[in-house]
């Protein structure tokens, strides 16, 4: 008589040696290395993107006649770049460890640390980016062409100060 799948399962796992948890020390080392490499690559790409933006934006803003905002934006980008480069050093201190537990703890510490530091930096940079964006809007509004274009297109529109 054929055995039921329940019986195969039950009998199969009686004294089953393969249910011993696999040794994962070396594999964790390999995995941690792969993870760190991936994060390093991500950081490097971010840094390159920051450098490009720090160069391109002032030039672009120069042609838009908002040089000061461009310079402010560029400085902010360069500061973020400097900070990110410092953060990148943390990967070197990541403890691959002799056991999986060491790796887990080390990785967890790194993530928590990066998140808390990133949060603090964003508290300063986001308001500054917002101010720069507002300043760009304000200067675009004050330059005149926008209001004159609106006058041409909608001659009946009433302006209170410079606000339609």
């Amino acid at each position, binding site marked *: 008589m054929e055995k039921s*799948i329940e019986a195969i*399962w039950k*009998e199969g796992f009686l004294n089953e040696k393969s249910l011993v948890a696999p040794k994962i020390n070396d594999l964790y080392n390999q995995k941690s290395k792969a993870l760190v490499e991936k994060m390093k690559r991500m950081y490097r790409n971010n840094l390159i993107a920051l450098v490009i933006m720090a160069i391109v934006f002032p030039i672009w803003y120069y042609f838009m006649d908002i040089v000061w905002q461009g310079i402010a934006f560029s400085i902010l980008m360069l500061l973020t770049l400097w900070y990110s480069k410092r953060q990148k050093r943390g990967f070197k201190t990541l403890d691959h460890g002799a056991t*999986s537990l060491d790796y*887990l703890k080390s990785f967890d510490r790194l993530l928590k640390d990066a998140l808390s530091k990133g949060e603090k930096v964003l508290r300063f940079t986001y308001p500054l980016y917002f101010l720069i964006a507002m300043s760009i809007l304000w200067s675009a509004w004050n330059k005149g062409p926008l209001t004159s274009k609106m006058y041409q297109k909608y001659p009946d529109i009433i302006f209170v100060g410079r606000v339609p």
Partner: protein
Amino acid sequence: MRAKTNKVSNDFYQASIFPFAPIIIKICRAYTNSQEDFEDYYQEVCLQIWRSKDNFCEQCKWSTWVYRISLNVCLTLLKKRKTNGQTYFTSDVLPDVIITENRAFEDESLNQLYVAIRRLSEVDRAVIILYLEEKSYHEIADILGTNANNIGVRVIRIKERLKKILNGKIN
């Protein structure tokens, strides 16, 4: 201080993950075709259990939590591999060479059963493993986030399909 943290983490590892190692192994085996993948999945499950320990709320049992994380991790990794275009043998295309080389267990019938289980859909695999682990329909439903009736119907269907695969009626 660090020694204290080490002790706490080690205690957690020993007390909360290792007792569930057999079921984690059984689940990971159902979603992998090679020893390398299996070990990779196993450690990823352990990592996620450890990382999510702070999110555990007393609304469910710790064992339910472990099952849930194990299945979620396996399904996520499987999905990732599919989207990354890595070699993955679906239930429809499972080459014989992988099947014959994949002798993870000493018991030949169990190996055959695992080969059959791997030919099921991802969710069906989860259902049947929990069923074979003698979890009630309610527990399975709780782990998978569905209702018990649905599980009951599904289990009958899966068992029929498994029998057909094992008897060679489905290639």
